[in-house]
């Protein structure tokens, strides 16, 4: 009886230690080595589309309807940009391509935002 108890205790402790290790490992993996980034397109703060960014990914153009008109978001492998926008100042288009987590392109007149998320990238970009 005693022996069985001990086995049980050791077993449970091992299981606990193992699960703790797995947990830590998973969090480490998630923060340090994850390479998958994605571009999130928001309109008025609400997510309308999420695009995976892959190194040798495809080329595509996505159309979204902003506050004042149609905008085109261009995907080129692991980077995106605002290709066309109805805003008068075209600030968003002039910003060019973005690819690193934390980078974003915002079109204020049209209330459209493209932001790169995921990976172990940047917390923000000063601009």
């Amino acid at each position, binding site marked *: *009886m*005693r022996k069985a*108890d001990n086995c*049980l*205790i050791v077993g*449970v*402790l091992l299981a*606990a230690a193992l699960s*703790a290790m797995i*947990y830590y490992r998973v*969090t480490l993996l998630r*923060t340090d080595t994850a390479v998958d980034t994605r571009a999130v397109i*928001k309109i008025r*703060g609400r997510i309308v589309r999420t695009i995976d960014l892959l190194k040798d990914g495809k080329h595509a153009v996505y159309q979204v309807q902003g506050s004042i008109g149609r905008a085109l978001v261009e995907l080129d492998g692991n980077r995106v940009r605002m290709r066309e926008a109805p805003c*008068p*100042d075209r*600030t968003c288009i*002039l*910003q*060019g*391509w*973005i*690819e*690193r987590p*934390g*980078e974003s392109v*915002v079109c*204020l007149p049209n*209330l459209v*935002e493209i932001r790169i998320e995921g990976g172990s*990238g*940047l*917390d*923000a*970009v*000063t*601009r």
Partner: protein
Amino acid sequence: MGSRPRVWLALILVLLGVIGFSLYPRRPVEYRSDRFLMDTLVSIKVYGRDDEKLRKAVAEAYAEMQRIADLTNRFPARGTAEHAASDVCRINDMAGIKPVTVDPDVFAMLERSRTWRHRTGGAFDVTIGPVMDLWGFGGKHPHVPKHDELVARLALVGSDRLLLKSRDRTAFLEKAGMGLDLGAAAKGYATEKAMRVLERNGIEKAIIDAGGTIRVLGKNPEGTPWRIGIKNPADSGGILAVLALEDSAAATSAGYYRCFDSGRNRFHHILNPGTGYPAMENASVTVVAKDAGMADILSTALFVLPPEKALETVKKLAGVEVFLVTVDGRTLHGKGPASRSVVQSAEPEHHAQSR
């Protein structure tokens, strides 16, 4: 059977509880919220245990930013409630007529702005309003003004004719036609105030991104300094360098925003108060400082100064660091006493040149 197994069982349960509990704090709750404010997108991220508390803190922080935005907005039309609520509109309306009692925060911003004008040899001046209006910045159709008109408006610029009386907290522009524009000061000031609100609510980890003006509190959720990229001003875009920040702020002034093309030239909205024309020597200036308000003002002031002069100015400022890119593509770096370098990595190879 006896009671032995039950004791062990109890011990195991306690042990599991301890393990579970020790794992729990590794996952702070994140609460994130975006809002369009002060003509830009402001995003606040906070971390803590209690979701309800985080929400309340962020709501109060936004309310504080909105309050500063309303007080400093200079564009609402006369006769509207927004116009009446704006201290800047009231001061501008009463230019040459009489002093106006203002909110303590507006007074603090004006005093600070005047100090920095002095310390940067006039490179920063909040009385630039009439010249900004002539260029049409803030409106729909900015354009290059006629030179003689510009010279006439320039006569209305000068903070030495902004009278501040701290005893009754009044502000007065001496000459009719003068006008304040707090566009280069209010966003940073509001960001700093918002962070103070978060701190007062017991928040220990937070990041505020007000359209590229960044203020961080504590370390990031991974327990390391926050990683803040500096946007490369070159057409290729990308990141110029990565800063590692804790409890400090970073602000950038650059020619790539709010600009328009006329003929073969591009004109942007950061005007030299001395000439009335956009400052043309720097492509982007990023300032790291403890206070977001100071970082915001300094990034504009140093952008206007010639690069060498900007570096010289920073050498005298404790805890301040500057990253400057000139229009001819030189990257310069300078810092004041007691400021440790916060550059984590610079990767111009990959990001600036590959595209």
